[in-house]
């Protein structure tokens, strides 16, 4: 396996086995592993005075190039467990421990303020417009409807030529919507003010996948769309030309969801799939820069924390988990024994203190992100909640369900 040589670091010149501390730092405890310390980072972002050590895996010249793949896999697995054990000795502080000093949340009274009726079949996906009142929603029968959620009036309706429209997104300008599903394509429909105009005529086909489209999202402008598909890839497209700008390979199974990072550089996004992995990608290079695999089942939904430093994921294993990007690990699990059904959709409140989860048992659970406890459970839908989004100004959240309705 030639890969092993290339990927396991170019650390040929590093120190031999045993602890090797670079000058000017406290010597680390000897690690009886096949790793050796290469760098010593400054404790920049962490507010802890403890040692910061980076252990990079590297293969010494003893590993033969012709070792089998399985041998390497088992080797890396044992090393991983050993590292975890070492890490466990370092007394990481869990999120809920830090949050103990934070005030608890009182009782929330959240009620359905609007019910949008009009879909003839299961509502599969929805998105808010930046004007904080319009919503686009798509359903199993191929209908895509744009609503003014405040007045509950339907403003536009388009019938797609396919069923199971699982993805829909509103353009940042509010002038177009994108949707797709079993037709393996993502189509962009410009919205016009003229209600009589046939929107389907102006449709533009943007993305082409080899399997169903599971999620789509505009990047910061109307001109680019990011899509994820059942064929296991994500892709970035130029809307005007329909050209593929970048594709992202790495998931071993269907990709079900994605979310763009609200970071300053705006260059990354996270995707979750049926292979139980959540991957963070660099949009420029197409590389997967981080990967998290702690869920026990398909990941149905991923959403970034408002600051962009973390993201939450919801999965069929009935848990939501929070992953910290800088620490590169899972930091919280939101689950309860009485919650049996999987999570279909998650989103944060504006401050990131609350995490809303739409579940397949027709309920919505609201979690306290910091303390890890459930704040409240909301009933109302008569079938599973398939999609959930908080409005751009954080004043409300909308849920779409298989009972043909949307609620705000």
């Amino acid at each position, binding site marked *: 396996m030639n890969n092993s040589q290339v990927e396991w670091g170019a650390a040929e010149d590093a120190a031999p086995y045993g602890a090797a501390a670079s000058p000017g730092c406290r010597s680390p405890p000897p690690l009886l592993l096949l790793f050796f310390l290469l760098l010593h980072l400054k404790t920049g972002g962490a507010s802890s005075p403890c040692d910061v050590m980076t252990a990079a895996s590297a293969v010494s010249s003893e590993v033969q190039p012709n070792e089998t793949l399985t041998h390497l*896999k088992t080797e890396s697995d044992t090393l991983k467990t050993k590292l975890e054990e070492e*890490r466990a000795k370092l007394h990481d502080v869990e999120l809920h421990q830090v949050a103990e000093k934070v005030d608890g949340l009182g009782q929330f009274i959240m009620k359905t303020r609007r019910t949008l009726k009009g879909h003839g079949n299961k509502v599969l996906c929805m998105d808010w417009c930046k004007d904080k009142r319009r919503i686009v929603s798509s359903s199993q029968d191929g209908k895509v409807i744009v609503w003014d959620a405040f007045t509950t009036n339907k403003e536009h309706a388009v019938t797609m030529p396919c069923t199971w429209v*699982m993805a829909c997104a509103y353009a940042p300008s509010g002038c177009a919507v994108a949707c797709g599903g079993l037709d393996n394509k993502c189509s962009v429909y410009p919205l016009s003010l003229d209600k009589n105009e046939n929107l389907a005529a102006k449709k533009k086909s943007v993305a082409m996948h080899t399997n169903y489209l599971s999620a789509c999202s505009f990047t910061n402008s109307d001109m680019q769309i990011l899509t994820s598909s059942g064929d296991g890839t994500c892709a970035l497209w130029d809307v005007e030309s329909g050209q593929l700008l970048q594709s992202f390979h790495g998931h071993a199974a269907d990709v079900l969801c994605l979310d763009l990072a609200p970071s300053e550089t705006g260059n990354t996004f996270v995707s979750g799939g049926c292979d139980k992995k959540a991957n963070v990608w660099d949009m420029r290079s197409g590389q997967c820069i981080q990967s998290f695999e702690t869920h026990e089942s398909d990941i149905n939904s991923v959403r970034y924390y*408002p600051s962009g430093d973390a993201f939450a994921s919801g999965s069929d294993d009935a848990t939501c988990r929070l992953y910290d990007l800088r620490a590169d690990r899972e930091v919280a699990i939101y689950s309860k024994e009485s919650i*049996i059904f999987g999570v279909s959709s998650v989103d944060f409140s*504006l401050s990131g203190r*609350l995490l809303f989860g739409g579940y397949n048992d027709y*309920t919505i659970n609201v979690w306290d992100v910091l303390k890890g406890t459930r704040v409240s459970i909301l009933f109302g839908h008569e079938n599973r909640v398939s999609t959930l989004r908080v409005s751009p100004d954080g*004043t*409300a959240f909308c849920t779409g369900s298989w009972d043909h309705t949307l609620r705000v």
Partner: protein
Amino acid sequence: MTINTLARGGWDREQMACFQKMEKVIVAMQDPDMGMKMRNQRLLITVIPHAMTGRDMITWLIQKYCICEEEALHISGMLVRYGYVYPLKEPRSLVLRPDESPYRFQTPYFWTSTRWPASELDYAIYLAKKNIRKQGELMEYEKERYSVLHKRINHTWDFVVMQAREQLRASKQRRKADRIVLECQEQAYWLINRPQPGAHNVLDMGLERPNNLSARVTLVSDIITFLYVSYVPVPFVKYSEQYQNHDPIMQGCLPSNPWISDDTAYTRVLGHLVLLVPAFAAPVDLVERWSFSFMELLNDIMGRREFMIYLEKEFSAENLCFWQACEDIRHGESSRIVEKVEEIYKNFLTPGAARWVNVDSKTMDKTLKGIRHPHRFVMDDAQMHIYFLMKKDSYPRYLKSDLYKNLLAKAIMNCPTCLFVLSACSPS
């Protein structure tokens, strides 16, 4: 009973996980020590053993999982809907009543997870039995299905009828209580697997996800870079605390949450910003949030405009213009990249240009080289440099400037509930 030999090949992963968890709850309920108390129920003249009431189930769930009554009702309702518990009194309606109506646990033979998929043959036998047992017991939709099945599997119809007769004969030899129980069990099973048209189909799991897990072992993900820092997740607490007062769902928003009060007529006046303020935003919140981070300021349209005004006063507006132009390239149409890069070069990067931006020499060299082969990300380095320049220099000065302070003061003044705060504050 007919033994279903079909393999569970097409079973959905998602379904199995749920069913396993539900089965765990059921088993826990039947635990001899910690489980529920069961008793004998009188049903007309027969006594059915091992039954419990809806009320018992709810109480047990509340106790075991420390949840509220509504949730316990919901969970037990789900158990009934999925056929793990069936009602004795009104066997056709799979609904849980939180009162004294009797329920029983479904036998594992009939659990949805063990018997899937229910075959047509089984269904035909069941309907035939019902038909033979009591003429007219079949409902309308069942009669229709019966005739459809009769046409479809006509070749084995003799077998169907024979099986039905045999099973009926066998059941006649049982005690009445057992007979009733078996009938109820079977009926509940078929109500779920062949629901009435128009009724809720709990076994509808949506689109199947073809799971093409490849055998690739991605060694890339095994590259382990562990940061051995004792992890203290303070940033989340800080962020949440900072934004908590601006979270409308948690703290309510001023003057009111429009979804609750139905109020869109509220027009906000904020000096020259009166036309731009969307009806839902409370200016105080917005203006305060601009001071949280540079990203907040830039992401908000009004914030950006205000910042531009300030920069123009300071004669450093070209920085923001350059940044915006770079963003435009990154997110704009592919076809116009070349012309946009040209424009940027002309306006911002050529020495002696009208709006020359101050980029360090290394970045400038790199960018100029890249311009010869323009692509979407050619301006990234320069853009980043200018962004951080603005963030470290202009942004903090803006927050301390009179322009910003006046804006904030005006916003507070215009906010009705803030007036009392203003009177309490000393003028800065």
